């Protein structure tokens, strides 16, 4: 297919978005239903045409497209041809707009019977504006369909790190789905502020759209951590890099929103606050895109920077201006008349939850932009890294675990300490047993012990709530009803978060890094694992050549490697190998090889005999719990989508 077809698709998408905005504006004025469904489908059609054109060009290695010549090569395997669409900025915008357009069609379809409702019309209008903005970038400064005049025979291929692991197929799409998903609650928040109508059933529906995005973002973040754990070769999964923080910031405010909307649903409180959170979350996704694409912050994700900075920060300013301006105009008239009666109640604990999550977001944002602030005021450069973030994140996370332990069992309006203790007693004693057992087995890290204790109690609270839900459902005739009950999804997510938290605490506190030098057929013992080096293996194909080490860890064969990719001037990356079970991960890297062998691409160490290798051996207890917890969080989020009757409550 020709280049112009893809560009035509982008133009169709953009023009439909503009036409949709005009149509909805006219419809608002005349008080009629507009043609939002037509235009949303035209938007989707346009972007699907563009995406298909790009995919065909990538799969057929059509190097007359500049984007294909830079991110594809004749020897790139099919999977990485397809994922090549999001290996660089221009193509990832295609994926971004595709997901956004799909979501817009979903929203318009969902509210098709309320097409003449002012709130729906305004929300659709806002969504069309958002689509229009991101499509405009593709129509102008970041055109994915630029023609490549040079005659390219082979192509450069994607960045080596982006063709080393199949996770690259799932991590960016989920992350983007999370990001674009937050435009729905934003659009409805703006619509409600314009029309001044919030006392209806909208909040709970908005919560469901938000949880859809939140679940995708959570899974995207966990998969990103898994990807960097498997590919980057230092055994870590989170580095507080600006680009990672960019995904964490909207996640934090969205988490606050998901919780505080419950209070609005149950007690009619926090109306303006919830609208502010929806606006803040969307603004943070735009800000995150700015951090990722502008290059103003030093980041390891250097393959994604561009010159779009001013455009994106302009859009951020517009979002803030519209959102905060509307809040200033309407906010005071929309406030709820009553407040929280006493802090010691379920709603009081939701307030604490919101303060912690928003505070968390603020300290992460400050740490991320501090180098820029410092530079503006002082002219110098400064780096903020793990020491700052870990120091602020640890106490906030423990405080959140405390809330997770108590809040689900506290009563609305006014909690009673005696009743609360009665509900908590069993899990509190269990938590105590767990930490005493840990202390006996040599865990003395105070923060770790506190985190584990409250995590255990939080798991107890979640399980107790779930037990109540199942019992209530059985009284009504079948446990299946429990799946759709209001607290089920939330408590499953809580369980996932608890497992994830335990994994993070234990694996980071008790990781052991070692380096061993082994000759062929030599065996050593590291942290109780026997490690035997059985020799080298070489593989080579059109894509890459690899030197693998055959290493037996307690009898399991692992093959850490050094891989050199063809294209991109022969990028060489280390490929770690991991032996994982629920109790511990053993993480092997091929660090260096003894003198003489220069063919492998690994670092050569001349003072070692030829044929010996230096292995990096890292053992991380309970690391797999992170991924397990992530999966459970995803399942819990999916449960929210199960339809349920409004107002059912069991706890």
């Amino acid at each position: 297919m020709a280049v112009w077809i893809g560009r035509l698709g982008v133009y169709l998408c953009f023009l439909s978005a503009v036409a949709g905005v005009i149509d909805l504006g006219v419809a608002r004025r005349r008080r009629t239903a507009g043609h939002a469904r037509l235009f949303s489908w035209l938007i989707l059609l346009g972007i699907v045409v563009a995406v298909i054109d790009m995919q065909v060009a990538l799969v057929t290695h059509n190097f007359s497209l500049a984007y294909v010549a830079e991110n594809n090569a004749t020897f790139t395997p099919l999977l990485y041809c397809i994922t090549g669409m999001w290996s660089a900025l221009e193509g990832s915008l295609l994926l971004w707009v595709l997901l956004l357009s799909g979501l817009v069609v979903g929203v318009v379809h969902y509210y098709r019977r309320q097409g003449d409702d002012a709130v729906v019309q305004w929300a659709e209008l806002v969504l069309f504006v958002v689509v229009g903005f991101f499509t405009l970038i593709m129509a102008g400064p970041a055109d994915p369909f630029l023609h490549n005049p040079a005659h390219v025979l082979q192509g450069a291929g994607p960045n080596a790190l982006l063709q080393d692991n199949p996770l690259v197929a799932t991590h960016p799409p989920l992350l983007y789905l999370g990001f674009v998903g937050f435009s729905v609650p934003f659009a409805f928040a703006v619509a409600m502020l314009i029309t001044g109508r919030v006392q209806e059933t909208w909040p709970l529906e908005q919560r469901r759209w938000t949880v859809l995005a939140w679940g995708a973002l959570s899974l995207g973040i966990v998969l990103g951590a898994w990807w960097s754990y498997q590919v980057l070769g230092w055994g870590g999964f989170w580095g507080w890099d600006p680009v990672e923080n960019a995904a964490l910031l909207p996640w934090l405010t969205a988490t606050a929103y998901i919780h505080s909307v419950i209070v609005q649903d149950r007690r009619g409180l926090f109306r303006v606050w919830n609208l502010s959170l929806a606006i803040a979350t969307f603004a943070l996704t735009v800000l995150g895109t700015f951090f990722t694409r502008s290059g103003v912050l030093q980041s390891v994700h250097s393959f994604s920077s561009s010159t779009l900075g001013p455009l994106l920060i302009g859009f951020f300013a517009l979002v803030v201006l519209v959102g905060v301006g509307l809040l200033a105009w309407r906010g005071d008239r929309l406030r709820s008349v009553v407040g929280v009666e006493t802090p010691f109640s379920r709603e009081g604990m939701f307030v604490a939850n919101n303060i912690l999550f928003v505070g968390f977001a603020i300290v992460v944002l400050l740490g991320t932009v501090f180098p820029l602030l410092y530079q503006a005021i002082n002219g110098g450069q400064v780096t903020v890294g793990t020491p700052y973030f870990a120091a602020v994140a640890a106490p906030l996370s423990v405080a959140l675990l405390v809330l997770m332990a108590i809040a689900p069992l506290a009563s609305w309006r006014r909690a009673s300490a005696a009743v609360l203790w009665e509900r908590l007693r069993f899990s509190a004693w269990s938590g105590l047993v767990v930490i005493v057992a840990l202390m006996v087995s040599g865990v003395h890290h105070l923060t770790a012990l506190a985190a584990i204790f409250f995590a255990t109690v939080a798991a107890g609270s979640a399980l107790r709530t779930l037990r109540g839900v199942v019992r209530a459902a059985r009284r009504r005739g079948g446990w299946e009803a429990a799946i759709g009950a209001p607290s089920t999804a939330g408590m499953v997510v809580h369980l996932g978060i608890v497992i994830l938290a335990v994994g993070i605490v234990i694996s980071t506190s008790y990781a052991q890094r070692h380096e061993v030098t082994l000759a062929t057929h030599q065996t050593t013992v590291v942290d109780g694992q026997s490690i035997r080096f059985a020799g080298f293996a070489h593989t080579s194909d059109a894509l890459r050549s690899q030197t693998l080490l055959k290493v037996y860890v307690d009898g399991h064969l692992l093959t850490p490697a050094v891989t050199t990719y063809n294209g991109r001037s022969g990028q060489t990356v280390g490929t770690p190998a991991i032996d994982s079970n629920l109790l511990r991960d053993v993480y092997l890297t091929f660090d260096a090889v003894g003198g003489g062998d220069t063919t492998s691409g690994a670092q050569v160490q001349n003072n070692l005999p030829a044929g010996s290798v230096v292995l990096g051996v890292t053992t991380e207890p309970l690391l797999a719990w992170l991924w397990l917890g992530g999966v459970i969080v995803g399942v819990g989020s999916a449960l929210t989508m199960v339809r349920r009757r409004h107002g059912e409550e069991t706890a």
Partner: protein
Amino acid sequence: MKRPVLVAALVALVVLSAFSVLLATRHPVQGASAVPSPLLGHEAPAINGTLLAQSTTPATSVAVTPGANVLTGLRGKTVVVNFWSSWCGPCKAEAPELSTFAWDERQQPVVVLGVLFNDNVSAATSFANHYGSLYNSIVDAGGVDANRYGVTSPPTTYVISPRGQVAAELVGPTSVAQLRAVVQRVSQ
């Protein structure tokens, strides 16, 4: 206050507008900036410590005796002293540049020397191995060396002349081109 939301929103609007202007006027990160350090032209403060274990052989090895000033043995050579840590993002961008520079200059009287800044040894070792560092690094227990130089944030790089005087301080991630230019000026 009769309209608290209005007041809060206006305050937020002012803060966020200032924030947007700040971000809009930033430029993409490019290299380190040379700063007028009070140490310039003075004798370089001592560097003590132990050698960081790493799996790669440095382009030019540095002899380290615990308790002695490492720089004493390097008189007559231009020394690039780089304070880094494994948690620092810009250091990740800079590490390959330093290695390339060390390798390019291995025939010249130029030595690259890393000094750990607020880091733990095991994390630093895996950082050095991961990036295949071609220069030695010093474990600066208690941040004594960093204090002598007045380093507040990694990466900070000092270029020390063959006569043992501080000739330049570079704050931020440096590059092969920048180091080459500075070292050329210093060696003359």
